[in-house]
């Protein structure tokens, strides 16, 4: 049985600058890993590289996902294989409604797996159900993607999309930043509802709050492009009281 994700000695640069300097990280099915670290540690670069964002160069190392070379796949192929990134700064897409966007996404994934497209009625029903899960009002279905959304609404929209796309490995990049306690709970409930023995998640944060609601199995400290410490939940308290300087 393969591990779900195996990152080995990953080095990545942006422009001429090396940001990731040898990451090793293995995630098994059903595990939730927290990656914590100070600003500039390389947390968002890690999520960008995992999802195939243009502009990052892998100079060394490998990433296996379900035993296959993840880096050889396009961003959409990664999504079809069950990878999902909740963006730190969700993108606004003027002129494209949430319904049109998600219908294209869901049906492309189904097509990739040899399934027929969902009928419009079935799709809308599914969408409504998942929106209710993160307490998004039904009228958001017709809104342009993230246009004019508050910070909390954008993050809820991310978790709604995550629920709808039903990923195997979810990466939450600073999903807790800019959320008040109520929005944080809604987001956390959404994430917890998706936990299962097959599904894994990486929660990237520099802050302990979300981890109170979504309890990780493993905690990593990322600093200066390397994982400098790996442990259990006790690390969260140590970081909370003593900061990242000790690592």
């Amino acid at each position, binding site marked *: 049985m393969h591990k779900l994700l195996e990152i080995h000695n990953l080095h990545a640069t942006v422009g001429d600058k090396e940001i990731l300097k040898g990451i090793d990280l293995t995630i098994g099915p059903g595990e939730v890993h927290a990656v914590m670290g100070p600003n500039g540690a390389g947390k968002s670069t890690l999520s960008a590289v995992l*999802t195939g964002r243009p502009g990052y160069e892998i100079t060394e190392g490998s990433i296996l996902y379900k035993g296959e070379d993840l880096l050889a796949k396009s961003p959409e192929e990664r*999504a079809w294989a069950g990878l999902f990134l909740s963006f730190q700064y969700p993108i606004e*897409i*003027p002129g494209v409604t949430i319904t*049109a*966007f998600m219908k*294209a996404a869901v049906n492309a994934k189904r097509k990739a797996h040899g399934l027929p497209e969902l009928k419009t009625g079935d799709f809308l029903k599914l969408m409504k159900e998942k929106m209710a899960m993160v307490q998004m009002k039904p009228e958001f279905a017709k809104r342009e993607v993230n246009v004019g959304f508050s910070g909390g609404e954008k993050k809820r929209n991310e978790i709604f999309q995550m629920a709808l796309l039903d990923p195997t490995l979810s990466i939450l990049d600073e999903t807790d930043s800019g959320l008040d306690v109520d929005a944080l709970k809604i987001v956390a409930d959404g994430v917890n509802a998706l936990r299962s023995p097959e599904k894994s998640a990486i929660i990237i944060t520099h802050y302990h709050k979300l981890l109170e609601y979504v309890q990780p199995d493993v905690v990593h400290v990322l600093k200066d492009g390397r994982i400098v410490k790996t442990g259990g939940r006790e690390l969260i308290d140590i970081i909370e009281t003593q900061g990242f300087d000790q690592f």
Partner: protein
Amino acid sequence: MGHGKYIDPFCHSDPFCHSERSEESLYRVQAGEVLNLQFVVLPGESRDIDVSIDLIGPGAQAHIKALYLCKADEKVNFRILMHHRAPGCHSTQIINGIAGGSAQVTFHGTIVVAPDAQQTEAYQENHNIVLTEDAKVQTKPQLEIYADDVKCSHGATVGQLNEDELFYMRSRGVPEAEARTLQMLSFLSPVIPEGRENEIEKAVRSL
């Protein structure tokens, strides 16, 4: 817009839109009349569109919507003169298009507001997307205002499809080509004529 006499140019504009390379038209819009013009240029042809509009009666209106899509070595040229000669007239122009291949596009749009044309409202927008390095778009908006009580604005942009939007959609599983199509259709949506959505979508996919 409901009160003026409506001049419907659609019945004759479409045939010559599709059959001739070049069209030059002069429209005179009288008091209280409303002129609506719509141009659609699809891949497969080069076109020169040269339109002069004289708003000669008080309260006259003219509204232009244009959409172009071009590729290969096609050339599309717009020259639009909107001349406000009488008081209280209102004009709007929105011209959006996408150039691929090694297509060349020019837009030269002039709004002239005569000294007597007080309480003029005149707006012009020209937005362009270039898909390739070889495609060229030149836009030259121009305002000549000789009256003092007017509301006028123009906006012109030449850009590319937004890469952040593209990656966001792809990361959710929307294939790159589909994501680009969604972006292009959303960019064009203000100028897509009702009832021609499928035709335009097909043309966008061909770029």
